[in-house]
């Protein structure tokens, strides 16, 4: 382990510890709620990034799978008489499985098209699922909404189980995203983003890999949806399948740095708390203007996202420092800088 890796590991460990201690450090229900939603969005944006960031297939329909997860969780809990409590969290896996199976045919159709046509088909998916949620009344209870199991925790301890499960889900998705980024699978996905036809020509089974990324994103977004359903205890079609969620995931990834592991996490950490704040602080309408305005500023002035911009600035500074100190052999400098681009 080099010193650089040791530093990174220590920083990540400290961040994780800080996150785990959050409910102890800030024992405030309102802040905990914001933290839980932020963690859910970190998981969603990171999962979205595996498809949208690595393969370049920007999906504006994966919020449909958030809704599928929420409804699958609620309906299956009712059907199987799952008691409310810690064991109910296991149903997140069932919700993910349902979404994963549904994502296969839908992903196959959408991935026949490329770029903008793909985007439009995924938008259509969101509305297909939203309409299904409205219309399959004997399953979803339509616009009247449907209730999930009521969590048994009361008062100040209510948020704690949700916080740690959301943290576990977020960490799981981040770890998976990092592992994929470093794997042969991840490299193939990046090759698809850069030049799909050449990737196909080099023998990468692009169709199968794209579909795998589509399904992985759907599974974890659905698990986030199931957690959301359990936390808010009552779901409606317009909130479970929300077009704003699609754009939030994309915004978070683009703000932090699309296609990087850290980008969506940073984006979600900034966007979700500020969105919650705008909703409370400003009158309805003004919050949308602020949110949309910020969105425009980010896209126009830092189109690559925060993380790559900051990382490159730091790297350029480090290189300047290194160039000034004559003790360091130049070969070492090039080796380190080549390594720096990997995460």
């Amino acid at each position, binding site marked *: 382990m080099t010193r650089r890796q040791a530093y990174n590991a220590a920083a990540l460990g400290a961040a994780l510890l800080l996150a785990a201690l959050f409910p102890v450090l800030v024992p405030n229900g309102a802040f905990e709620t914001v933290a839980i939603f932020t963690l859910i969005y970190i998981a969603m944006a990171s999962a979205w990034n595996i498809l949208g960031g690595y393969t370049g297939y920007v999906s504006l329909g994966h919020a449909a799978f958030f809704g599928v997860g929420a409804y699958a969780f609620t309906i299956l809990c009712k059907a199987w008489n799952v008691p409310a409590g810690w064991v109910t969290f296991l149903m997140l896996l069932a919700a993910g499985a349902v979404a994963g199976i549904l994502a296969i045919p839908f992903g196959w*159709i959408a991935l026949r098209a490329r*770029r903008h046509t793909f985007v439009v088909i995924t938008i259509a998916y969101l509305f297909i699922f939203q309409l299904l949620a409205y219309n399959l009344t004997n399953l979803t209870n339509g616009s009247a909404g449907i209730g999930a199991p009521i969590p048994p925790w009361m008062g100040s301890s209510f948020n704690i189980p949700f916080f740690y499960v959301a943290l576990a889900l977020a960490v799981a998705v981040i770890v998976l995203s990092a592992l994929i980024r470093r794997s042969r699978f991840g490299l193939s996905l990046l090759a698809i983003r850069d030049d799909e036809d050449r990737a196909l020509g080099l023998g990468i089974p692009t169709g199968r890999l794209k579909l795998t990324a589509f399904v992985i994103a759907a599974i974890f977004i659905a698990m986030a949806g199931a957690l959301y359903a359990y936390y808010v205890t009552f779901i409606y079609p317009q909130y479970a399948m929300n077009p704003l969620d699609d754009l939030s995931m994309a915004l978070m990834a683009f703000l932090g740095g699309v296609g990087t592991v850290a980008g969506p996490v940073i984006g979600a950490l900034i966007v979700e708390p500020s969105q919650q704040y705008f909703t409370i602080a400003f009158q309805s309408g003004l919050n949308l203007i602020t949110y*949309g305005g910020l969105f425009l500023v980010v896209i126009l002035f830092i189109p690559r996202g925060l993380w790559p911009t900051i990382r490159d600035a730091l790297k350029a500074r480090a290189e300047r420092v290194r160039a000034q100190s004559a003790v360091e052999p130049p070969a070492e400098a090039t080796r380190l800088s080549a390594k720096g681009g990997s995460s």
Partner: protein
Amino acid sequence: MSLLLDGIISGILTGGVYALMASGLTLVFGVLEIINVAQGSLIVAGAFLSYALLTYLHINIFLGLILTMPFMFLVGYVVDRVFVRRLRVDRVMMSIMVTYGVALVIDGILTMIFSTSYVHLQTAALNQSFPLAGMRVPMIYVYVFLMSVVFLLALYALLYRTTFGQALRATAQNRNAARLIGIDVDQMSSITFGICAALAAAGGMGYGAISSFHPNSQFDLISRVLVIIVLGGMGNIGGALVASLLMLVIEDVVSTVWLPNWSTLIFFIVLAMTLALRPQGLFGSKEARQQ
């Protein structure tokens, strides 16, 4: 049988309005090579402008277009000038993000001014109707359809009968080649965006006259209009016209003959099935392989 006819007639009449909204969007895609996600909010903004003129100044909604269309043209021109023109790399993806930001801002402004309740453009023509094939067709549907036809013909004349239109089509065919022969491509793009917004104003008025709307209607509208232009083949105006009529007729027939709840779903299912067979849409040329 009369129900079927009913569905076909109302589908064609409302399809005209969608053709108007979709033609602007597909024109922008053709010329600028971007997807304007703000089109839905521009349509709703146009509808609200007509609503404001009608409610507060008592200006007829058709006459009001003389004011709303130039205004919306300016809005579109400025949006392109300030936001879209800056995009140089990965234009399609970035444009979706930028125009979404614009849509949110417009949505916010409309929410602040008009709140989020449903409104409807109330006109005398709404209550008049005439008999056709055993059913009564509201006059407003016919007026709005005629208006759409007039604007679509005007658009056709502009694109195919003027030097400006020739330059615009040249830009749509190949931006670089157009720039080489001396066409101001950036100016063309801004004007096209303006035309798109002006058509959205007219389409929005038509939409508001035949159905009720509120600021959030933009999500429903943009998804439908995008579906129409993808089905027609992106950038293909003729394809967008056929696709609008086809989709609205299918939707209205399903709605009258079968169940109104499921009609919109059919709309999206037709899209998914078509694209599974023909990813480039009904009239689109094969997508360029290196994108």
